[in-house]
Each structure stands twice: as C-alpha cells, then as structure tokens.
C-alpha cells in the first residue's frame, strides 16, 4: 500500500519529466518534427476529448497541422528546458474514457496533469536566445490505456499554451 502511494506521488513528476525530455528535443530536430502530432490528443469528431493548442497566441485546431508550423523554424533551432513543475488536476480524469473505465485508478493512471515549463529557445544559429513558457495539460492516452504502450505515448497533450516571453 505504501509502495503504491509513493508511486502515485512520483508519477506526475516522472510523467512530466518524460514528456519534457522527449517533446522539446523533438521540436529541436528537423527529422523528428513529423512525430510532433503523436504528443497530442488527436482531433476526432467522434471523441468528446478535444485538443486545445495555442502557440504564441495562434490557435491550432488540428495537431496534424503542427509539423507544417514547426518546419518554419530555422535550422539548428534549439529548445532547452530549464525549469518545470506540475500538479495533478484530476486524479480520475474521464473525458473520452471508454464506458466501464470510469472508476478511479489507484495507480494514478487516469490522472490529468498540469505542467508548466520554463526554458530557452534559439531560433537558428547566431540568433538571440529567447525565453519561453509552455503550459500544458497532459491526459491519459485512452488508445493505449490498460494495454502495452508499444512505443506509443501513455500521456498526451490536451491543452497547450506556448509563449515566447523574453
């Protein structure tokens, strides 16, 4: 029991860490930009779970259009995470959860997590280093919930607000 609680406490931080350590390097490498949509809740008319993405104030309704946007970054763009923090918003997040999965999960696998990231970005060689803030809400990826993830992400972005702030 104690073990279980400690795992649940670790989970939000670990999940956020895994996310930040993978997502921002992916934004920094041209060949991984095509994988960016996999970090997000997909846009699906049938699902009540919708992505909400705002990048420097521009709304992006479909994560599938993100690679086209990030490809505008100049070569050698580099994002660096310098600080992050997270809170569990709802330990039993249920939007888009399949019927029959509405019960809480004691291992924390149904939590939604708010993550704030503070970091720096250099848009291309020789450019000035700028500061960014990214605010995300991660939710369970129902497609792999309770199944082997097989390389797919267990938590995906439902809400994102990114801003270059300095």
């Amino acid at each position, binding site marked *: 029991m104690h073990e279980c609680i400690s795992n649940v406490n*670790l989970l939000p931080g670990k999940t956020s860490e895994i996310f930040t350590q993978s997502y921002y390097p992916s934004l920094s490498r041209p060949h991984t930009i095509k994988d960016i949509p996999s970090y997000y809740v997909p846009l699906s008319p049938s699902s009540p779970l919708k992505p909400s993405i705002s*990048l*420097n104030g521009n709304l992006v309704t479909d994560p599938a259009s993100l690679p086209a946007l990030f490809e505008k970054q100049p070569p050698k763009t580099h994002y660096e995470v310098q600080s992050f923090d997270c809170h569990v918003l709802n330990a039993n997040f249920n939007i888009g959860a399949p019927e029959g999965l509405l019960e809480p999960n004691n291992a924390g696998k149904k939590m939604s997590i708010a993550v704030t990231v503070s970091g720096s970005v250099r848009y291309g060689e020789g450019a000035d280093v700028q500061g960014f803030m990214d605010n995300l809400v991660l939710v369970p990826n129902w497609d792999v919930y309770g199944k082997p993830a097989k390389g797919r992400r267990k938590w995906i972005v439902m809400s994102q607000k990114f801003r270059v702030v300095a």
Partner: protein
Amino acid sequence: MVQLAPSAPRAHRNASPSVRGRGGIQKRKAGGTRVDKDGDLVMDPTIAADKRRAARSQLGGSGPSRGQGNGRATGGPPRGADAGLIKAQQAIIRGLNAKSSQANVLESRMTAAGTRLQIEGLSSSKAAANPDGGMESLLAFLERKASAMDTNSNKAVKITKSLKRGDLIIITAGPEDVERIKWLDNFSFAGATLSIKPYELKPDKVGDKKKEDVSPKAQETKEQLRSVLATRYNADLKLLDLSALAKDAGLIQMGVFDGTTTTSKIFPALMVVCDGLFKTRQEKRDAIVSVTLADNELSDVADVSELAQTFPDIQNLDLSRNRISQLDSLDSWGNRLRNITTLILTGNPIEPQLPSLQAELLKKYPRLEILNGIQFRTPEQVATALEVAKFPIGNAPPDFRDVGQVGENFIRQFVVLYDTNRSALLTNFYDDQSVVSTSINMSAPRGATRNTVIIPPWQPYTKFSRNLVKINNLPTQLSRRHRGSQAINTLWTALPATRHPDISTQADKYLIECNPLPGLVDPTGQSPRGVDGLIITMHGEFEEQNDKQEQHLRSFSRTFVLGPGGPGGPPIRVVSDMMNLRAWAPLASARNMAAEPVTAPAPVAATGNPQQEAMTVQLVERTGMTPNYAVLCLTETGWDLEKAFVAFQLNRVCLHFSSSIPSIINKFIG
C-alpha cells in the same frame, strides 16, 4: 597539433603537440583574445603575448591613447600608444628576420593556453577513491555546474578532452565553455576545494626556451603589423582597408609573402593585432564599421575567416574584385557577420547570380539592405523581418477565450489582492483542495538586460522552489507543493511582499491568455466525467519589497486552473496555481504577426436552433444582458441555462467587488 578549419587550404603548423582544436574558432581563440558566447571580447590574462604587449592604442591614433606604458607587464621600453605606432613604422626598416618572427607570432598564438584548464584538488577529494580516481565524477561535476553558470546560454558545457598529469587534471573545452568552467575556481568538490587555472606549459616543456629567445622579435613583428594597420585605417569613415594586402609595401618589406600570395598567413596575424587594440566589443564596434577586402584574389573567405570573429559587428563589407564564384565561398564566416547591411561583391564571378541568391544571402546576413550598391530593403523592412525571425511560429495577440468574464475578474482581483491582502485572496478563491507551488528558473534568458540589470538574490524563494529539473528528491517535491488554504497561507506569508503593475494602466506589462478546460474534479461529486473550468496563464513582472530600498524586479509567469468551488467554499476556486519566477527581462510583446494562419479561428456561435433561441431569450430576461452576450455565455457553458445564469451572477459579484478597479474592458484582452 592544431586542427585548422577544414576549408583552410593550409598545411598544419607545428605548434605545441598537445594543443587541440575544433576548427577555425579555436584556432583564433588561442590567439590571446576570445569572444564569449555573446561575442563580447574577453581578454585572457594568461596569454604570454598579451603580457608582453605594449600599451593598447586605437587604430590610427585618432582616439585618445590609453593604457600607456604602465599597462605593460614585461618587455621593451615603455612607449605611449601613438609614439608606439611611429616607432613601429620605423622598425620596419630595421633588418629583421621577418620570416621567423612571423612564425613566432603564430606560434605564440597557438601555444597559448586559451582552451585548456588545469585543475587541482581532485587527489585530495573523496572522489579520488573511485576506481577511476574520481575523474569521471569530477568531469560530470564541472560540466553540470558550469552549464548552470551562464544564464544566457542554452547549450550545456562539454569537456572535450581530459588528461591526468600527476595531481593536475588538464581539460580541454570550447572557448565559451572554458570561460564558464573557470568560474568554478574555488568551488568545493567532494570535500576538496578545486583550483582551476588556465593551463600553462611548464617551463621545462618544449618550445619555452625558444619562446623566450624569440619573443622580442615576435613583439617587433606585432608592432610592424600594427603600423601597417594604422596606415590602413580611416578614422573618419571608420573604415579598415584590408584591400590588396599582397601589394602592401609594409607587408612586402616584412617578407611575409615569401614569393606566394599567402593572405592566409598574414591575415590571422593582422586580426590578432586588431584584437589587441580593443578592450571590448563595443570599442571595436565604435571604431570599425566598414571593412574592405577588395582585390585580394580570394576565391573563398577561408583565408580571412578570422574577420568574422574579430569584427563580428561590422556593417559594411566590400569584397570587390575577388574570385568568389558561389555563396558557399562565404561559409568560413558562418553566420557570424549578422550586422552586415551593405555587401559589395562587384567584380566577382558570383555577380550575375546574385539576384537569385538574395534569399540565401539574407539567411547569412539578416540585416542586409544594400547589395552591390542597390538598396533592396528599407531599414523598416529589415526590422519587420527580424521581428518575424524571432517568432518563426508566429506571434499573435493574446488568445483570451474567457467564460463569462470569470477569468478576467479573477485576474483583476488577483493582481491587486496578492499585493495588498493575500488572506482575502485566499478566502475569495482558494479552498482546502487548492494546490500552489513556485519554481525558479535561474537560467532564464534575459535578452539585452543581461549585462545591465543585477539579479536580486533568489534567497527568499530558493527553499520553496519546485523546479523539478533541479529538485529530484520526492519528499522535497511533496513538501514544496502546498495544498489547502492553510498551507498556502504559510507559503504566502513567507514569500516577499510584491507590487504588480496596474493592470489597466500598464497593460503592456502583462500577457494573459485563457481558455476553457474540461475534465476537472466536480466538487459536488455528481458528474463522473468532471466539470469545466478555465486555464489562465499570466506573464508579467512584479516589484519585490526589500530592506534596501532598491528596485527589485522579477519576471514571472503564473498558471491558474479555475473550477467551480465546493459547497460552503468560494463559488470559483483555484484548483492549481503554479508560479514560475525568472530574472527580470522585458516581456516579449505579442503582435499580430501570424505569418499565415494554420487553421481558421472558430466561427462565432450563430444559432438557428429554436431551443437555444428560447434559452437566450430567457437569459436576457433574467439578467438584462445583451442577446449577443447571452449567446456567448450560453455557448461557453454548454447551453446550460442554469450554469450560464450562475456564471453571470458570479461575474456580478466579482464586478461589484472590483468596482474600485477601472472596469474598462481590458486592453490586455485585445
């Protein structure tokens, strides 16, 4: 062995066998001056050549001479800067083995300790007991600590090479990294104090005796080069004329060309001498705005690659009548000459292609306005293009999608009450489930303020910082997450008092965004799928109270998740409140600069549904709000009449509460 830039068609010079480099940058760095990450000139006090250098002077002697004789460490008789130039000119005539002294100038550049450091203290540390003598953990320690030293860099420090010599550890790293590692001098590592110094060859090492013999000659050569430069500097035009070097009488007299056209040999030496003339990058910027390299028979710029490091801020560059045939030929300068506004390439084979190469040229020279005498962009166009380059993924006004002004009213109250009455703020918006934490990003970029604004101490915040990049210990993580009004009150009592800019009159100090967020815990426990709330991010700054009567500014970002409150609590509660603190820097302004919209914005709700229209009428009747606003309110509350009414009521309460704040609809929303 010195590794030359790959494109440099030169033989390897024989220098100290242990100096290693990574290319052009390092090659120059060894020369006695270096440019830090921002390109600011940093003098390396350890370089022998520098110690021997005579007083600094401005090129051409147009400015006041500075430094004078007392600035010298060792060497010949003292002389003032201008006098030095004259004497140096005379010295050219003196018979001197120019060939060997030329080599010595280069040698002294390359054997200098620019990119290596020697570290003492490992053997007395606890880590010395490790199987590898502690080497691995020392290097990891240095890389980690040094990476955290420079707040303007977003690249980690990397030690490229290390070796153990007795109790000394000798490490090699890039020039910027070396600068950062040097700051760790006197840091304690595993119980021992580290001594970090530039690596110096021991007196019994190769070449040193020879160096002592030849250094006066090297010095003499330097003086000669300085006099050549003096004749080529036009103080009125701030122009350094480096054209037709192979035909320069002074240089020919020195014998440096040795029958072949070896700009490659003389140019680096000239740049080293130039470097020595200026204390700071600003001095260079002020003295030299234009450089001409015309008539040097250059087929590429590898031989003159040092220009970009020595004068990264020049604005006008003339490459007329060389043999440049393609854009790649300029690659040796990389992207360093970013301030070029005028570029002249007339009389080069590349000339006819230039019109089609404009876009490519702009990548290298983002401020380029005039090419071969033709102005193709205005300064305003350049400014706009640069602004766009700062936001390649666009920059639009704040995305503020409020629900019935709940977000706006919360923010208006928050910024006032956090400064004046935190306990009232707690009562109004926080309950026993609210979670608050603070994280500090001490490395956040600061833009132009990095050299001008001193960062107030972080001490009042450090023991609360929940920056999970740094805080990996779970009990610490948990203790720095404050759940419930009481815990939050304790935190807020301990945090310094603040003063936020007035949100109505200084809206430009804020950037606030907001959108609905579904799936929050229903405090009544009725809805298994959760309830809707809002997520708000506020970027801004505040002034922090301190005992010294100084202005302590911080930049902050705060993310709030708002949801409906529970029974008996505030009607709207903060579910989560995360504050991120950074050294102050002006807030990047949001402009309408979306290069091209990625997706069309959501259409304004237009209802043709009779049921919805009936609801609208009812809401208008009950609240007296306009039909348009009623539709908005209903749309945002999912066409739930009761919810919409509650939202309206809450706002009325909020509006009443905040009536002392000017209630003009925020500028910050638009």
